[in-house]
């Protein structure tokens, strides 16, 4: 995909108007504190807390469960331990540390000791980019090694992109979301090639 196409596809998918009914959820999400009272197997407690807060920002709870409700942070922690190669997991950790340091630098306090509002503000600022900056980030993280002089930016961006991807994948492949939110049909039994989308509702689970 070239730059122009990438840009176009991003504008397309972010330009979709959301349906009514999410505003109550929005309020709910803003007041909810993410829960990090689980014992990580790879991350340290502070890192696990940050991964949890970020997952919560990527997919907040609304009238339907959010990422934290379906144990996304725990699964990311497990993947880091079992699935990531050693260099991959160290790269993730390095980016996460840049994230935490930049937070401390900006707000003058450790991330985990700050208010949920400030945490959320910082996370959202990191992910809210113009389409052009998004392209720059995606191009940067496609590099195999950190370009000289841009190490912090490179590791932070790689972390943010990976955390987002893992959160989405873990969320939509969790049993609760797959069965209760998406359209779950393990044994369809027949093939109907063309039917009204209203008869299905949400996207098929798989």
């Amino acid at each position, binding site marked *: *995909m070239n730059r122009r*196409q*990438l840009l176009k596809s*991003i504008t397309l*998918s*972010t330009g*979709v108007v*959301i349906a009514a009914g*999410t505003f109550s*959820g*929005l309020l709910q*999400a803003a007041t909810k504190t993410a829960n990090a009272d689980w014992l990580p197997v790879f991350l340290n407690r502070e890192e696990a807390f940050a991964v949890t807060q970020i997952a919560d*920002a*990527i*997919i*907040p709870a609304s009238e*339907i469960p*959010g990422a934290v409700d379906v144990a996304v942070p725990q699964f990311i922690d*497990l*993947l880091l331990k*079992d*699935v990531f*190669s050693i260099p991959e997991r160290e790269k993730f950790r390095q980016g996460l540390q840049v994230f935490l340091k930049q937070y401390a630098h900006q707000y003058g306090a450790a991330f985990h000791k700050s208010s949920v509002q400030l945490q959320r503000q910082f*996370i*959202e600022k990191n*992910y809210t*980019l113009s389409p052009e900056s*998004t392209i720059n980030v*995606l191009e940067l993280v496609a590099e195999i090694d950190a370009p000289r002089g841009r190490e912090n930016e490179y590791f932070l961006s790689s972390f*943010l*992109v990976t955390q*987002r*991807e893992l959160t*989405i*994948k*873990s969320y*939509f*492949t*969790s049993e609760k979301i*797959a069965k209760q*939110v998406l359209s779950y*049909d*393990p044994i*369809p*039994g*027949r*093939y*109907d*090639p*063309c*039917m*009204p*989308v*209203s*008869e*299905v509702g*949400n*996207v*098929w689970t*798989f």
Partner: protein
Amino acid sequence: MINDSVTYDAIVIGSGISGGWAAKELCEKGLTTLVLERGRKVEHIKDYHTAMMDPWDFKHRSYNTPEELARQPKQARTGFVTRPEGKHWFVDDVDHPYNEDKRFDWIRGYHVGGRSITWGRQSYRMSEMDFEANLKDGIAVDWPVRYKDIEPWYDYVETHIGVSGQNMGLPHLPDGKLLPPMPLNCVEEHLASSISKNYKGRLLMPGRAAHITGDKVFKGRVKCQFRDRCIRGCPFGAYFSSLSSTLPYAAETGKMTLRPNSIVHSIIYDERQGKATGVRVIDTETKETFEFFAKVIFCCASAIASASILLNSRSDRFPNGMGNDSGELGHNIMDHHHRVGASGTIDGFEEKYYKGRKPCSVYVPRFRNLPGQTEKVDFIRGYGYQGSASRENWERSIPELSIGLNLKEQLTRPGPWKMGLSGFGEVLPHHDNKMYLDYKRTDQWGLPTVTFDCELKDNELKMRMDMRASAEEMLTVAGFKNVESFDDGSPLGVGIHEMGTARMGRDPNTSVLNGHNQVHSVPNVFVTDGAFMTSAACQNPSLSYMAFTARAADYAVAQLKKGAL
């Protein structure tokens, strides 16, 4: 060395698509048959342990661990076979090494049923055009067979296995004995109409796949449930595999002995009789060696493995490998080249969706270099397209950075419609595309390993340009947007249609097998896996292996009864 006191009527090497068919046919015709499988024992249904698992039932969902990947680095080149749901059907590359002078993706399944459990199930007949192609183009050697010779055997195997699909009356893709097709969805239908309207002699049709559809009853099998989890093994027996469809018939005769964990490393030749008398076997678990004897031997170990066994069957008469007077054994490796095509999205179908996961692609039959066609291209032979349309799911969001409730809301909805077309092209036979045995690098059983030295050549590379451009053009003409073409490269082997290593021909000086899949110089040895293919055509080949196996078994039994073998 343990000599089995029993002499069987027949030995079948391998239990995959060809071996299962050989076993069924030989047993049903009354021959006591020993089926030797190098891999582990598998029981139909019972051993498909991932078949009913959902993503969250796997500890790491769809991810592999580095430890898992380290065991299957070559199998993983396909990009799909080593995922947790099906990885146990593909070999451990560390335990089963091979060598590459040039890259070759040798994707193997060592277990009872072989790759019949994991095959793509697309089932197309070769046509008269395909059997005449080498003669007309003056390349390699002529097939000693024509369509009329094999037609009744296509009828026979299709009727037994069940193939869903639609007959289109095309001379270059013959009609078959088909079950009801898996219909096109509305976007596939849209592309089909556009192609028919805009291109003379080109069409898009439902693919033909070896799945049961409709109401015809197949013993011990249930029709397709549209789960699209075929690679795990089907607990409904809905698609053809040796386990669902041939080995049970062979077993039912009481004539079959199936011995797993048995590597056949060579065939025993008796110079006095001018025939093979049996096979030498190593038990993979005990490492004991055995000899088994039979009147007739069917090599169905897959193209590369059957050629290896013959190459390793050296004697005074055959110093370069059994049946290798021509020097063609192990040469002329072909496959189908693919991983080239285009995809695009389309507007106007937002209110439409489907139910069920169709385990079968659509098919655009070959439209280049057909008889009587005047339009010229800069390559010979041709290709077909497979593909499908579907609505994207949450994975579409990965290449962007948005977060929050908007994102969540969007991703729970069906995404845009996307259609992809991917070509499957014919690979020409070249003598210098070859495999050979390396006696210095042996495996854990002390057997020589296979080395590959073959690659795509000029005709295939030119064809790929057209495969890419034509897919892009057809989608664009049909009003698709964001059309992107791709060519991900196609090393030989990655089509998992490796073939041609013991080709059929009319002349023993230039081919290994005659028109009955019989080794020219050793009449009681038959080779009926992909090794026999004289040319590749562009159709998925397994249906042809089944038809040629059934025909060869019929011939072998008739010859045995006449006392000619």
